[in-house]
């Protein structure tokens, strides 16, 4: 599945490690939540970077002690109808200040890109090549946003207030 980062298709340096595979000292790896919680200190001592694939039915609070040592948190959309990872993403970004890569995995289609960007995702494991290629165009499909999130886009309510102030200033 193509990975989209910084708005375009990019190579993935992270390798998903099976739970029974030995942990290599270097190289970038993605481990399961269980594997991470089994030996978080050990993983932190590796030379390579570590990321975790965090299931959507587990509280992100359990991840917080290790958050600053993780390069990637991959959140899961088992089907695109299951939106739990949007909440997890916003909590990690907005409440817990996670600055690493937040990756959307699972059933990721172009129709979710704007929602995901707004929720704080910045990497996308896209299911279809055609959707991955359409990323840049799809991501700018909307110019109006009604809700404030951590992505910093100006909301419609505030844009109206700005317009109103500039109108008043011009009078």
């Amino acid at each position, binding site marked *: 599945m193509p990975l989209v980062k910084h708005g375009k298709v990019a190579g993935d340096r992270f390798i998903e490690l099976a739970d029974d595979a030995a942990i290599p000292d270097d190289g970038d790896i993605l481990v399961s939540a269980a594997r991470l919680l089994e030996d978080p200190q050990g993983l932190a001592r590796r030379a390579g970077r570590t990321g975790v694939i965090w299931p959507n039915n587990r509280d992100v609070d359990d991840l917080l002690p290790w958050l600053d040592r993780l390069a990637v948190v991959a959140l899961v959309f088992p089907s*695109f*109808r*299951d*939106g*739990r990872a*949007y*909440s*997890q993403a*916003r909590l990690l970004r907005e*409440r817990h200040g996670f600055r690493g890569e937040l990756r959307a995995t699972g059933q990721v*289609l172009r*129709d979710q890109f*704007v*929602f*995901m960007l*707004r*929720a704080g995702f910045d990497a996308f494991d896209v299911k279809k090549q*055609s959707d991955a290629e359409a990323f840049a165009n799809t991501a700018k*499909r*909307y*110019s*109006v*946003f*009604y*809700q*404030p*999130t951590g992505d910093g886009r100006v*909301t*419609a*309510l*505030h*844009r*109206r*207030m700005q317009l*109103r102030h500039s109108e008043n200033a011009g009078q």
Partner: protein
Amino acid sequence: MYAYDEIDRTLINERVTEFRDQVKRRLSGELTEDEFKSLRLMNGVYLQLHAYMFRVAIPYGTLSSEQMRRLAHVARRYDRGYGHFTTRQNIQFNWIKLAELPDALADLAEVGIHAMQTSGNCTRNITADQWAGVAPGEIEDPRIWAELLRQYSTLHPEFSFLPRKFKFAITASQHDRAAIKVHDIGLRLHRNAAGETGFEVLVGGGLGRTPFIGKTIKPFVPGRDLLSYVEAILRVYNQYGRRDNIYKARIKILVHELGIEKFASEVEHEWQQMRDSALTLDDAVVEDIRSRFTYPAYEKLPHMPDELKQAAHDPHFEAWRKNSVAPHKVPGYAIVTLSLKPVGGPPGDATAEQMDAIADLADKYSFGEIRVGHEQNLALPHVARRDLPALWRALDKIGVATPNINLVTDIIACPGLDYCALANARSIPIAQELTRRFANHDTANLIGRLHVNISGCINACGHHHVGHIGILGVEKNGEEFYQITIGGRADENAAVGTLIGPAVPYGEVADVVEDIVEAYLALRARPDELFIDAVKRLGVEPFRERVYATR
């Protein structure tokens, strides 16, 4: 009226462009039907028995005459010349072609209406008291808050893929016309002891397979905190609502399983971490929305104009006036309800010609404004009382002046097996038969207020649980049967009805309703004891006896 500005219009147009791309990908096979399903549902498109059905939102039930004309245009151009007003202030078109849907949406977008989130597991159309802004005694116009919620919930980046659909309703009156207690979140505007305006927030109401009356989660949330509090509820629901079983996925089940105290404390915990955030509505923002709701320049008019005195000699006019005209907050004006329940007609349907004529009458007599209520009727909210006789004649001519508002023939019914792929039984023909049985206005008037609600399946789109008489279609060995409940209501004293006995076959439903009504007439304490009050006093038993004695 709320006037969409350039910002709102841009978003609607962007949504149309996105949907056009989605339809194109479906038609080319790039999207499977399963993938497309969630996408089309989020834009109000269902696959029904015979065709695609298209549901358009009428936020908080307010329409301009221009918008109504555009709905008529869609009915005529893309459908079979009519539309169906639903119990959630939407309109449905039953015969739309998928390839033409993007054009229909683009036509609607030109007048600021859309189909965003009229289906799917997201926040649905925000509904409100259809008399908002004109009902006497209101705290304030609840549509300002409904509009804030509409904007907040439109394309929400976190809550567009909830465990199940999510419905808000809002009222600012003592008497609840918006059925807030049977919504996922019900909001009642009121003033606290300090004179501040805020909301009683109810959660976990709903009908369907497992009906619940909403419970108060917080008695007072100040207006400035409304969005953050709602976000806290939605976040708890999004994470912990059940996704393993579609029938247990509504928030009412989560509230029920956790208990309201536990659920409330989860929400409170979440809310305390984000209540002071960008979601806080400062006064200027609320005022900005408020300023875009415009109200008519009412004249100073007499309460009893000569036109009304003269028309009082016409018993047909008087019957209609007493039934369909309600007091307005401004002296000299009235709220007029237009019955979409003609004898023998499908409840809630209007033809393109009727819609156009109603739009013209709204321009002439109601400052260009029309309302849609959850009882599937329309209203003209600002009619000068002196114009009532002329308006009545015009409404009568187009068949929307049946004086049966709130009477036994003002039936709420879902589309049922005539259209719906989910239905087990027909609803519309039952409603039609009942309107014929009780066609005599004097009889219906003698019976008084009586709400009959009909659903063609357990999903309860016809709100049968909260009908004074509720009728639920079920299927038994390939035949249509109907369960009858009584004592339900959807107002501020909301209650779920009680089953009176075994289901009856299709052919007997109207007889059973007649039996129930006759029992009521014989048993009521006084002529003004309403059916619903008599059931409360007497219980189900006397009605059960009457119905099943000979069956």
